[in-house]
């Protein structure tokens, strides 16, 4: 039983082509930033990844609330999909941040507020995925995973706040600040385009992963049916 959803496939291809075009533009067309040189181009991957990671957290929160409210299994399935996609983009964001940090800050890792928060977010996504897989019954999954989803979402602002305070109080602010007013309109608009494409890809991936999860469970059901038919015949 193979389901090929042409519409989804075409949408995916369009997003992919758009991403490639945007990356081409980011790497070869747009002008170099004066302070950092070519290294800065990594923001076109870094910032969109982190945005998508946080979007996933937001989707996870919505799905968790919906899950507890409606007691629907679908919403925790989407929750798992968004946690997995979120984890992927969090890692991407961390890795690119680290690579970017080496030439600009002179170190692979610094306890920068955003890096730290993102790192904790990655751990929380891992926790969610592990919990999802270690609870068997659907009803328990709805309850337990939705509760964790809400706790994670409630915790992110606190973690962010605490980590920002921690850093701003004990280290002089970094010389280079990401974003800010120094950005030229060309760079900014390209960055926004990149963010939009990455967010769309994130959502597309979540939908695909959700379908994949339901398909897996349908297959399981199918095999149960087969076993029963064999037993019966």
């Amino acid at each position: 039983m193979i389901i090929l959803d042409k519409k989804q496939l075409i949408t995916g291809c369009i997003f992919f082509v758009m991403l490639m075009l945007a990356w081409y533009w980011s790497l070869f067309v747009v002008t170099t930033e004066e302070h950092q040189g070519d290294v800065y181009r990594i923001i076109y991957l870094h910032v969109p990844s982190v945005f998508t990671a946080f979007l996933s957290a937001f989707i996870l929160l919505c799905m968790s609330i919906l899950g507890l409210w409606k007691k629907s299994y679908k919403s925790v399935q989407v929750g798992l999909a968004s946690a997995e996609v979120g984890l992927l983009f969090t890692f991407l964001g961390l890795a690119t941040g680290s690579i970017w940090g080496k030439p600009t800050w002179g170190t692979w890792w610094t306890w920068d507020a955003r890096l730290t928060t993102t790192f904790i977010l990655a751990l929380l996504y891992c926790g969610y995925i592990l919990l999802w897989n270690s609870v068997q019954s659907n009803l328990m999954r709805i309850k337990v995973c939705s509760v964790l989803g809400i706790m994670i979402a409630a915790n992110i602002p606190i973690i962010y706040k605490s980590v920002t305070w921690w850093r701003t109080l004990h280290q002089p602010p970094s010389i280079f600040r990401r974003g800010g007013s120094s950005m030229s309109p060309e760079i900014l608009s390209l960055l926004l385009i990149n963010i939009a494409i990455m967010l769309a890809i994130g959502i597309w991936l979540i939908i695909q992963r959700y379908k994949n999860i339901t398909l897996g469970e349908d297959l399981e059901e199918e095999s149960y049916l087969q076993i029963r038919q064999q037993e019966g015949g």
Partner: protein
Amino acid sequence: MLSIKSLSFAFQHRPLFKEINFDLVPGKLVHLIGENGTGKSTFLSLIAGFRTPNEGSISYFNDKGEEVDDRRVYIEYLSAEANGLYTKMDATQNLTFWSKLRGHKYSTQQMVEELKKWGLGHPLVRTNFAVEKFSTGMKRRLALARLNLSACPCWLLDEPIYGLDTKGIDLFKSAILNHKESGGMAFIVSHDTYPLKELIDEKIEIGAK
């Protein structure tokens, strides 16, 4: 009265039962029959509310015919493989805790009476032994004592006489008779039907094709 309307349930994609309609009326003991794995225990857990039915509804009515919103004041559940007892606590502490949770205020005297009824009345057994040191049958008796003190109209009994000796079974029978006389009702799952013969009013077969 407990009213079940077109109840259907599938466990792990395996339909266990479909379209069950049944009214359990006060004073009746209904025996659920069926082979192993047909879903008798699952049926009880649906009524207890541990699982949600795929379709259909279960409603609970008090003796005045009003619908009861909170099923938890209506049913007392006895699981097949567990007694729901705090193993580190003694018999009295267990009974007190569970009956106080239901808001009952039994005197010590009443507790002792109940324990005596189930053959657990000896002062040493009553207060000095943690339940983990009880034998299988003694634990079951204590669980049945809790059931008796719960004063709930509907009992859900999953293999209630498992581990009981003949005397224990007789005690159980008289508890059931009392419960029925006072307008109580019960669902019972038991493969050991012989001792319960005269108590059973009705039978439903679960998972019949």
